[in-house]
């Protein structure tokens, strides 16, 4: 056999592997899309406002501690707190954990809510960096501020858990805002399941460009920036298509740290948030699944599409890169820390389906796709034989990268009655068709960078510039 023949055979072999992988991925996502469609069909016409009123009664809701880790969040923290104070929920406390901010976060919160120092015995159930002081608002007695040495987001959340007094806690990012009914709706699966559900994650949406005043959404609308619009499409796809389907079979390994509720008892049993990873939210969920599997308890972790948390998306490519790199690094670290779960029947479907899905599709997907893009370009120079093959591979990329996004936008528009408006819908659909040509390749490269950083053991979170969602932040 001569060298060109070997090279050609090897090239063809790699091509078929890539094609097989892409077709498998497309099959999985199509299934997810169908499951999400069936689920949304059932709920689409349900008027949720009719049921909310009933659920407000204190007698069947469980009290919740809302924990807001804040590091240099002076731009968004007030809007965040106002939105939390407006929550329709019978009994809850808000703990803002100032994780050694170097900006005006602490002073701003103390001044705005008239906070006074509070003597409080802390039940130190999780190890954290020392707490320096606790303040309580004179205006809103259920609002407290904890100031502590900087230890990272996980450490701040653990400090919040130590100070919390209720059996459930809800983590909300300092730059995010909740709808009035969000807490009620995210707690519903826990209450209705009669404590079988130990954690729930809410739907996170991007609010850049929206009209927000005093922590409340006044008017919905699409931002101008294509980078943000593309992220809106991406969030729709991830939350509506991915998590709904995974949640249907108790396979959710990621519930967003921006908005999720946990049963405190179980989180304490697994040692709280890990400070060893930049993806502490995912790591906690994987750890909980592991504990559930180890104890053979019949517990669930679910995603609920309805409760909405509004978050600020990065609006520059540099910030987006920092975020995506960190997310993927967190994913890699979480999977690595719990590698014993992989393909392990002890953990049921989580070990046999969910873990492999996150490993092969979510973690390694970008790496394989990157190889695919390179392969595609080389194929075009390899002569006529490969043109057809390159065309097919390109179409699978188009299907995977753009058409699924388009389908998600349509699914979202169909399942919701008010948003997006027709002109916004057209704009999002057209933009989603361009994803494969610019946005997807960029995020693939950043995610591969995340894998590299995980392999090198880098620990920095990286700073993302915040502009603030609420008008009062300006």
């Amino acid at each position: 056999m001569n060298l060109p023949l070997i090279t050609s055979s090897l090239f063809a072999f790699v091509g078929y592997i890539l094609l097989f992988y892409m077709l498998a991925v497309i099959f999985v996502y199509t299934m997810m899309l169908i499951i999400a469609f069936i689920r949304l069909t059932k709920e689409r016409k349900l008027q949720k406002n009719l049921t909310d009123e009933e659920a407000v009664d204190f007698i069947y809701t469980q009290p919740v501690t809302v924990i807001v880790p804040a590091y240099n969040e002076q731009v968004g923290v007030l809007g965040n707190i106002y939105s939390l104070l407006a929550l329709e929920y019978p009994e809850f406390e808000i703990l803002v954990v100032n994780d050694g901010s170097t900006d005006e976060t602490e002073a701003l919160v103390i001044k705005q809510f008239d906070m006074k120092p509070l003597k409080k015995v802390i039940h130190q159930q999780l190890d954290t960096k020392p707490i320096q002081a606790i303040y309580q608002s004179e205006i809103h007695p259920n609002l407290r501020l904890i100031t502590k040495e900087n230890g990272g987001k996980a450490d701040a959340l653990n400090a919040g858990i130590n100070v919390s007094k209720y059996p459930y806690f809800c983590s909300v990012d300092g730059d995010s805002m909740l709808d009035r009914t969000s807490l009620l709706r995210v707690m519903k699966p826990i209450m209705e399941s009669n404590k079988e559900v130990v954690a729930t994650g809410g739907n996170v949406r991007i609010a850049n460009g929206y009209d927000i005043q005093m922590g409340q959404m006044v008017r919905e609308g699409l931002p101008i920036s294509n980078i943000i619009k593309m992220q809106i499409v991406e969030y729709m796809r991830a939350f509506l298509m991915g998590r709904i389907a995974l949640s249907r079979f108790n396979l959710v390994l990621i519930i967003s740290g921006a908005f999720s509720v946990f049963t405190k008892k179980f989180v304490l049993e697994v040692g709280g948030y890990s400070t060893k990873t930049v993806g502490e939210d995912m790591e906690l969920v994987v750890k909980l699944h592991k504990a559930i599997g180890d104890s053979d308890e019949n517990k669930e972790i679910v995603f609920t599409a309805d409760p909405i948390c509004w978050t600020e998306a990065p609006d520059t490519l540099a910030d987006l890169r920092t975020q995506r790199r960190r997310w993927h690094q967190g994913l890699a670290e979480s999977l690595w820390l719990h590698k014993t779960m992989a393909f392990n029947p002890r953990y049921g479907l989580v070990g046999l389906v969910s873990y492999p899905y996150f490993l092969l599709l979510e973690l390694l997907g970008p790496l394989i796709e990157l190889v695919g893009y390179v392969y595609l370009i080389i194929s075009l120079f390899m002569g006529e034989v490969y043109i057809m093959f390159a065309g097919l591979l390109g179409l699978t990329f188009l299907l995977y990268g753009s058409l699924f996004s388009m389908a998600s936008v349509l699914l979202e528009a169909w399942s919701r009655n008010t948003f997006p408006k027709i002109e916004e819908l057209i704009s999002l659909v057209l933009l989603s068709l361009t994803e494969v040509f610019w946005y997807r390749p960029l995020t693939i490269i950043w995610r591969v960078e995340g894998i590299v950083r995980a392999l090198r053991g880098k620990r920095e979170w990286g700073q993302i510039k915040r502009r603030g969602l609420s008008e009062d932040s300006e």
Partner: protein
Amino acid sequence: MNRILLLLMLAIVLLFLVLLFLFLLLIFYRLRQVKRKKTIQNYIERYQEKWISYLVDDELSPEQLKPANAVEMEAVDELFFRLRYHFDSEELTKKINDYASEYMESYYLKQLTHRNPSIRINVLYKIYLYDLTFLHDAIIKQLEKKVHSKEEYLVLCKIVAKNFQTDFAPYYINPKIPLGEFDYKRLLVELDKSQIELLAEDFDDLPDLLKFTILDIVGANHYLDWLPLMHHCLDSPIQELRIRALKNIALLEVADAYSVYEKFASSTVWEERLMAAKIFAFSPQEQAEAVLNRLITDSSYAVRLQAAKSMKSLKNGQQALDSVITNSSDAFAVDLAEEMLGKE
């Protein structure tokens, strides 16, 4: 091989065309929906004064407001919802009932038997909210059906309990669908006292979860005359029932049977000690102080904290806490006492 590749290509292109078609279809439906909403809004704006004349001022006959088509019925329903959401009066309920039974019976019945469960649930909530008693037979018929979602069953039960004082009990005691505690709470929270009493006639034979819920409702509503039943539950071999009884005795804010509660302060179950600590907040000073002094050094943090809180609410609570600060060798108890005397 090339043929397979070609077929795959065609499949992907076809999928794109399907999505494109769905996209256009969606836009068509969205446009239609926007138009429908606008029509409803226009109707409400145009007729709301007339409706208020009929419903509130009693100056107009219902014939003048007879809905002309399905969209107008939808608009009237929306108007009922807005009114009923904000106002509650017997007169309003009667007027809505009269009007709906005359002109909208088929509208509600159609939704009640609709294939889509969401539509059925929506209309059930509305029937509950508007008190549409003329649909009683249809509601019972629905309840007798074999297949329901849990949500549907719960709202059907609530409607029966709201509109018919005694018919509800069998559906609560022997539900067709397994119910959890949260479900029972949803069912029981709006029952009046006589209905709770009816339900608890054979308390010992009820499902455990229903017993727990009844105790919680009694505690939340401060039904003091139920104290003997609470005491009866304290002798139960079911640990959760004892804890619930203790918890709700604490909510009744009475602690007149010292000897009954005192033994729970030494229980091996920390939740029972916690609830005992809660109850002793309402006990006479000398009895409570001795027990709470012990519980403030308990092995469970929750019990210690509760003991400190209860101590604070005693008549001479400040003195008792000062005494802990001065005399206790337990640093944690001292900290808690200091916290209680500070700002809580």
